[in-house]
């Protein structure tokens, strides 16, 4: 089974040379730490920066330079700043190659819910609805089950949707899955996790090929 760092590490393998990548808050943010150093990638943050670098050293924080999680950041050579309309032109216009975000629920037809729990949590969707409605290549990073142990991979989402039929791939602590017309196609198992364990933790339709390799980490 993977921890959050492990999920981020596995997703980092999906980041290819020349990609512009938008990382959501939470596990997706960790992906930046594991991208191969011999490829060229630029991270976009929807509040208006391309070419995001690591956190600043203490004493070098700049209140004018933050990411979408409102964290202080630095920029790398080649970086640029822009306004919010331009930022979402990059996103809606499909100039961003890969979007990685967290989710509360994903359905086996690719619907995603991650912005609201009626009566409990209403923080807002931020840029998530724009991202999932536009991006061609969306990877969800999340735990396979919620804190109550219930599957987050469902036949249909129970929470208010963020977007419909948009998720391509899901990387969880248990597995790598692809959304297909027949449901979640099981591509890889996390180290030490059996197909049976994944089956019992998945509520949506699950397609299990004859061979399910353990994921390379």
């Amino acid at each position: 089974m993977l921890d959050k760092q492990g999920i981020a590490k596995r997703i980092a393998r999906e980041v290819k040379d020349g990609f512009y990548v938008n990382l959501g808050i939470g596990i997706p943010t960790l992906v930046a730490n594991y991208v191969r150093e011999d490829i060229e990638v630029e991270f976009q943050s929807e509040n208006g920066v391309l070419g995001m670098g690591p956190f600043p050293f203490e004493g070098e924080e700049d209140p004018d330079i933050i990411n979408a999680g409102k964290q202080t950041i630095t920029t790398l050579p080649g970086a640029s700043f822009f306004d919010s309309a331009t930022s979402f032109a990059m996103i809606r216009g499909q100039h961003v190659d890969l979007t990685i975000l967290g989710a509360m629920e994903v359905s086996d037809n690719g619907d995603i819910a991650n912005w609201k729990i009626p009566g409990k949590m209403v923080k807002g969707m931020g840029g998530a609805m724009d991202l999932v409605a536009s991006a061609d290549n969306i990877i969800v990073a999340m735990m396979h089950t919620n804190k109550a142990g219930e599957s987050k991979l469902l036949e249909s989402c129970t929470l208010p949707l963020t977007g419909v039929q948009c998720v391509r791939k899901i990387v969880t602590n248990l597995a790598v899955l692809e959304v297909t017309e027949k449901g979640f196609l099981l591509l890889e198992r996390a180290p030490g996790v059996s197909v049976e364990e994944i089956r019992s933790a998945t509520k949506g339709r699950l397609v299990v090929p004859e061979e399910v390799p353990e994921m390379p980490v």
Partner: protein
Amino acid sequence: MIRKTVANAQEALEGIEDDMTLMLGGFGLCGIPENAIAELVRRNVTGLTCISNNAGVDDFGLGLLLQKRQIRKMISSYVGENDEFERQMLSGELEVELTPQGTLAEKCRAAQAGIPAFFTPAGFGTEVAEGKETREFEGKMYVMEKAYQADFAFVKAWKGDEAGNLIFRGTARNFNPCMCGAAQITVAEVEELVPAGALPPNEIHVPGIFVRRIFQGVNYEKRIEQRTVRSK
């Protein structure tokens, strides 16, 4: 040169009244019009509708207006950092319209550019699209969103000149440029106000035509919301 300068925030907010709709730039606490917010608090105008990506924190930014119950309705994309906000929303004292971030930016930009409405894929199939016209283009579904109509836009820039030309710094740019000229009256406050001619025309981010009033801000706090650092 058409001069846009006014003496201070007090003069810049001339004409502000209860129940108006305001746009306020900023992302979190980054690039917010601190002086205009302080003046709104001082004037104690109420019943405001505020279009702003976020709602500040409990004791800063728009949180200051929320504390004094000056806001009737918030239009934002994300409001997660404010306990008082959550309390007022759940109790029904505060009306909240949550809007996808890119849609919020574009609704400002459309108002600035004289475009009454546009189609976006964001929110299709979700509760955001409820009651709105949807249409298919090239096999994909889109939601019609309308330009905002606002009385005042309050923006914050790094540098500005007497002609109202603006230059922003870092990610403090965010929604500010999209809101310039998107309301009846745009008020820009700047960290450094310089004479016309002192800013290179090639480097202007927002031309002065979109700004009605500009003033030199004072006492910027520029608070950091999430101070994150790495060790050496």
